[in-house]
């Protein structure tokens, strides 16, 4: 599903964020990426979603070399991914429901069908009652769950999440982690950057650890 071959990433004007990283994630696997702050976890996820391009080596997703993808092809890669960002990237000028509808609108679904599926996704993360709320009116945990609902609404077969349980109290973090475990259980490949390995132990995940851009 995901395959890194000697991938490296150097941002302009900084030291290597990733160097010579090789690993593979099989279909349906749950894989956690750990490592200190600045180790390159977010960079690793960004390479998968073609948000950044590798400076060396190759990154394959579903057999596609995403580093060499034409700009016009990138949107269609992303539509098959579920992305949960470290900073969530919710739109604060539209309701919870409209935030979740966005990926479906982008895919060209009719509004009624899109709203139906968005409500189902909100229901899955326990936010159906708050569909009309603006994100600013939601608690930190609710915002996190909203961003998960948006990531899964287009039924991706690969779910990427960047520290989805950070800044949450233990109980909320466990609820959020359970959502990912549910998706893993129905066969979705789940790839999570996190410090909170213990919330995911139930699924016996494989663990990758980064240190200064290198896989341990």
């Amino acid at each position, binding site marked *: 599903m995901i395959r890194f071959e000697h991938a490296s990433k150097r941002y302009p004007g900084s030291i290597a964020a990733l160097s010579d990283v090789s690993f593979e994630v099989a279909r349906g696997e749950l894989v956690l990426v750990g490592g200190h702050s600045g180790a390159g976890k977010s960079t690793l996820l960004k390479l998968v*979603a073609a*948000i950044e391009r590798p400076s060396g080596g190759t990154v394959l997703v579903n057999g596609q070399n995403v580093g060499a993808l034409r700009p*016009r092809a990138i*949107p*269609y*890669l*992303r*539509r098959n*991914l579920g*992305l949960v*960002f470290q900073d969530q*990237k*919710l*739109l*604060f*000028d539209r309701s919870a429901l409209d935030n979740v509808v*966005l*990926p479906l*609108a*982008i*895919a*060209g*679904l*009719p*509004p009624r069908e899109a709203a139906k599926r968005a409500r189902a996704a909100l229901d899955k993360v326990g936010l159906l009652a708050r569909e009309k709320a603006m994100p600013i009116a939601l608690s930190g945990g609710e915002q996190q769950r909203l961003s998960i609902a*948006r990531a899964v609404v287009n039924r991706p077969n690969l779910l990427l999440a960047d520290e989805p349980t950070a800044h949450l109290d233990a109980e909320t973090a466990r609820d959020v982690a359970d959502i990912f475990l549910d998706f893993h259980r129905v066969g979705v490949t789940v790839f999570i950057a996190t410090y909170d390995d213990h919330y995911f132990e139930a699924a016996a995940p494989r663990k990758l650890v980064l240190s200064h851009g290198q896989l341990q």
Partner: protein
Amino acid sequence: MKTWLTQHRAALTLALRRLRAAPLNSLLSILAIGIALALPSGGYLLLSNLQRLAQKAAPTPRLSLFLSIDSDRRTASELGVRLKAHAGISSYIFLPREQTLARMKKNEGLGDVIDALGHNPFPDAYAITPASSAPEAMEALAAELRGWPKVEHIQIDSAWVRRLDALLNLGRSGLALLAALLGGGLVAITFNTIRLQVLTQRAEIEVSRLLGATDAFIRRPFHYFGALLGLAGGLAAWLIVSLATLALRGPVNQLGQLYALNFDLATLGPVEACWLLFAATLLGLGGAAISLRQHLKQH
């Protein structure tokens, strides 16, 4: 096809929502566009009204034929027969010199001068309506009549109409220039408005890209936004011009009555109004497209 329709409807809805999100900004932009378009439209209307007025004031151009002062009445009637037979003349009126004298004497001040002369200074004359009112045909006719015996002078009465026509042509060129300039102004207004829109929608653009939006998807609502802005500005211009003509219609009518002209100020017809709206929409869309090419790149 269905997806296409869905996406365009969604983009249109979004554009309308963005217009409504900053009502004051939108209103000011629309007003600026409206005024920029009202000026050339008003100029166009002014010219077409002047042209109508000119046609009304001189419905058929005429020639005046003056006989030499020493010619007698028989010469005049012989000339009349020749005029009648001429294919290039549709009608004519004989103006005997006594009648001209009597008419002129009625004029304030002129009577005394004419009395002091002691004789009738006016020649016999014909007022001629040519078959063709084309300037070239009239010139040719005048040249031919000038060669006839005892014809002292030929005057083309429509000269001022043609001078006005030349002036109107000049006005039209000036108007085209003005329209081009203000059309450019309209593009500049939408360009800037869209630039600000891109700045305010920066988060939305970024998130949409991350969620798999194509360039077309991101541009579409901005295109609609620009086109709607242009259309609304065109409507504003139409409203401004219509109200202005409505307000001027009364005074112009009164003025016309003073000159015994029954003249109604015309406003923009439906076809002209459609062209105005079409051009405004197109210019708005163009401004948006240029602005997007500039400002979306930075992301």
